[in-house]
Every structure is written in structure tokens, then in C-alpha cells.
């Protein structure tokens, strides 16, 4: 495969975008797991579909449409979270449904031959273009830079908002920033695994990394490495078995995660057994 990668531009793009996606997902995935924002991130991710539909409808680059709509949705969700004491799962569920439906609606309204939405739903890493790659790269840099530059304050906000507020840390700003970063990450990952499978790439690497460390920084680094391993192996599986790349990556993630959880459950049982 290595030789083929050297030969074909599209395979190079695929490998690069897999690595870039894993970087953003490792960082943001760790954060949304620790801050219990998985459901909200799911809602934000699914509004991206509406944005893609809008992009087609307006005749602009769909990923730009997704970017605008997703960031808008993220700000909306952050505001709901801040302003109401109501269980946010409910508005998030509505966002989720509305985003998907709007996507379908816009595509239906778009004149001419309907575009293939499967690429965006399930991802197709093999169609990532050079220009897409640059978009992904710049968003990636933004996500990494924001989290690195504000790392200690992010950690304080994630851990204990109340205390951070009393310390004079701008928690509202950090929260909105975080939601924008989540939105950007979603857009970064759309081409790699697609909207449907984004949650797998966001949550599984940090969930596994958690078994090995109790340090936030290391958790992010391990998650990135695990993500790279997942996406590249998935890519290789997709190439050799000739199955769609997004599906290959997500299924591989699920299998590994299942296996790791099983091993962990068994070893813990044994430990308890031995001790007791």
C-alpha cells in the first residue's frame, strides 16, 4: 500500500486528512467527554447536514455551508445551555432532527441532478481534494492553537466552572469558544467519516485513552495517536477489502472499543476476585 500511496495523490490526501481529523478529534473528543457534552456535540454535528444541503442549494462549496450553519448551531446550543435550567437534551434532540430535515429539504429544492449525500453522511476519505485539505488544515491549526494557548484556563473551566468564575476566569468566553471549536471539528471530520460516524471518532479514542492516564494533556495526546491508528487502519481495511472508508473506520473503532471494554471488564472481575 505504501508504494501506492506514493503514487496516487488521492491516497496521499486520504492519509493526510485522516491524521488531521484525528488531531482535532483527539483534542475535542477528550474535552466533550470530560465536560459531558457528547449529546450536544451530536446535535451540532447533525446540523452540519442542513448546512451541506444549503451549500448545494446556494451553489457554494458545501463544506462552507456546513461551517456557517454548524457554528451558528453551536452558538445557539451554548446559549441554550447557559440561559435555561431545562434539560438540554430536549432542545438538542430538536436541533438534531431539524438539521437533518433541512439538509434533505435543501437538497430536494436544489435544481438539477441530486448530489450524492452519502459522501457527507458516511464520509469518503478518498474524495478529499487539495482545497478541502487546506480548509481542514487551517481549521485544525485553529483548534490546536486555541486549546494549547488557553490550556490551563480550559482545564479550569472544564473541571470546575464555579471556582473558575470566582477566580475571574472568563468562563462564558471559554464556553462559546469551545462550542465553536466543536463545530469546526465536526466540519473537519465530515469528509473522513461523515456526519453519522463522527461521534465514534470523537468518543472512542479518549474513552480508550482514559484507561491509561489521569492527565488531561496526556489524554489528548494518546487520543490523537489512537485516532490516527484507527483511521489509518480503517483506511487500509477499506482499501484491501474494498468497502467504504467511513464504514471501515467506524466499524474498526467499534470492534476495538468493544474488545478493550471486554478485556477491562474481565481483568477487573479477576482483580476483585483475587482481592476478595
Amino acid at each position: 500500500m505504501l508504494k501506492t500511496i506514493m503514487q496516487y495523490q488521492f491516497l496521499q490526501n486520504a492519509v493526510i486528512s485522516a491524521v488531521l481529523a484525528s488531531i482535532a478529534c483527539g483534542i475535542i473528543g477528550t474535552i466533550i467527554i470530560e465536560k459531558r457534552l457528547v449529546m450536544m456535540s451530536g446535535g451540532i454535528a447533525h446540523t452540519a447536514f442542513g448546512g451541506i444541503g444549503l451549500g448545494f442549494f446556494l451553489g457554494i462549496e458545501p463544506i462552507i455551508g456546513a461551517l456557517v450553519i454548524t457554528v451558528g448551531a453551536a452558538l445557539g446550543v451554548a446559549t441554550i445551555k447557559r440561559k435555561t435550567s431545562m434539560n438540554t437534551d430536549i432542545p438538542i434532540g430538536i436541533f438534531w432532527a431539524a438539521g437533518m430535515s433541512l439538509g434533505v429539504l435543501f437538497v430536494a429544492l436544489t435544481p438539477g441532478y441530486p448530489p450524492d449525500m452519502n459522501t457527507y453522511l458516511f464520509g469518503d476519505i478518498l474524495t478529499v481534494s487539495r482545497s478541502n485539505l487546506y480548509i481542514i488544515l487551517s481549521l485544525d491549526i485553529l483548534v490546536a492553537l486555541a486549546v494549547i494557548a488557553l490550556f490551563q484556563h480550559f482545564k479550569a473551566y472544564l473541571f470546575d466552572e464555579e471556582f473558575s468564575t470566582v477566580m475571574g476566569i472568563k468562563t462564558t468566553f471559554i464556553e462559546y469558544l469551545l462550542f465553536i471549536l466543536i463545530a469546526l471539528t465536526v466540519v473537519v471530520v465530515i469528509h473522513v467519516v461523515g456526519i453519522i460516524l463522527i461521534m465514534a471518532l470523537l468518543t472512542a479514542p479518549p474513552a480508550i485513552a482514559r484507561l491509561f492516564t489521569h492527565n488531561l494533556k496526556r489524554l489528548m495526546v494518546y487520543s490523537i495517536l489512537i485516532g490516527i491508528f484507527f483511521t489509518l487502519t480503517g483506511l487500509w481495511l477499506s482499501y484491501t477489502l474494498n468497502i467504504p472508508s467511513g464504514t471501515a473506520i467506524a466499524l474498526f473503532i467499534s470492534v476495538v472499543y468493544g474488545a478493550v471494554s471486554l478485556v477491562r471488564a474481565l481483568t477487573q472481575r479477576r482483580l476483585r476476585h483475587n482481592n476478595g
Partner: protein
Amino acid sequence: MTNVIEVKNVTVYYTHVCALSNVNMLVRDKEFLGIIGPNGGGKSTLLKVILGLIQPNSGEVKIFGQPPTKALGTMGYIPQFTKFHRDFPISVEETVLMGRLSGGIPLFHKYTKKDYEIAHSLMDKLDIYSLKDRQIGQLSGGQLQRTLIARALTVRPKILILDEPTASLDTESKSHIYEILEELNNDMTIIMVTHDMSAVSSHIQTLACLNVNMHYHGHPELTDELVNKLYGCPVDLIAHGVPHRVLKEHNKGGHDHA
């Protein structure tokens, strides 16, 4: 002496529940104020209003003559109930260091050597230095509480606000904490909510009794009458033989000025 905290006619409603009604309170510089009152009396609410975490429905709070949101970073806080998740990937040392963070959003913040020194000396003082690399989920309740006290102290606050800080501590740690607080009181104003009547008698300088209204604020001497009014019935503390300074005889009461 100057007033560091002024609470003027503060009323707080949670939707329909009135938690504080027209509360007035002045706290002087370097005062050690104890706040007592029954469950649901609004003690935690009053602290949160002072900290700027809750906006009062009416009335105002001034910290050093400014609204609380302008005084952020001058107060150290130990909440009654922590809202964080105990499985968060953070160590005892990192938690304590948090108190050294500066407000605002400075980029590429790094803790200095001095930050570490301050954190380590407080961890030493509170006997948690040996636990410094533990993830906070792996601490006992009392060890976690001492970690949070250390964190509030690393702020080096001008005002220290504690909401039932000794609730989960053993007797020895308790008296140890009170010793530390008394020492700290030389440099800072301390407000402490407590149900621990022995602490009230031996450590604090002024006492506030809060049950939605401020019933009393003054010397730590309580009359049966006041206790009755505050708690609705003669509470445990009488039966358990509270030290003399706290409970004065019926007729010699403190002056109600709330």
C-alpha cells in the same frame, strides 16, 4: 476599620422560593464572621451573592466598594457541594495550583516556580503533599475537602469564604483547620458558614444568624430566645451543652440590628 463587604437590602428568589429577604450585613476588614442558621436558611445563597455567582433580585452587594463581578480574584471560595465530576483527569497538585490562575484570558499561561512553592507549602500544611499525584477521584471525602481548602488558600485571597468547610473532617483535622484559619485571619477577612457550634464559641469573632431574614449579627453570644426564633425550637445545641460564650442567659441578649 473599613467595611470590606456591604450587603444592602438583598432579596433573592429562586423562581417562587424566597431564599433571602431584605438582608443587610456589613463585614469589616479582618473580621472572622460565622454564619449559622437552619437548613434552607439561605446561608449558601448569601455566600453566592457575595461571590457574584447569583444576582440578587433587589438590593446590592459591594466588595471593597465595587460590585462582586469587579472583585473577582480577590475572594477564595470553598463551596458546600462541589459540582465537578470526581472522575475528571486532574491530580491533587493540579487542583491546588488552579488557585494560582489569573483572571481574564492570558495566552500560554504557565505556572511559575513561586506558584508551585505556594501550592506545595499549603499542601504541606494541610497534610496532602504526599497525595499530590493522586487523581482527585481517588481521595477520601476529607482528603478532597482539604485539597479544596488548599486550593482556596493558594488564591491568597483578601476574603476567604467557606461553606461548611469542616463538615466531612475528623476532629483532629477540624481543629487543625481552625488553627490555620485563625492564623490566616491576621491577613484576611474570613466568612464561614457552619453548623459546628463549638467552632462558633471558640474561633469566630462575630456571628450572623440567618433564616431568610438576618436575625442577628454581632458578638458570638446567643440567647435561648434567639435560638428559638432562628431554629423554631430549642435545637440540639442546647441539649449538647454548648460552651458558655455561645449561649448567654435569657435576659442578657445580644442586640438585634438586622
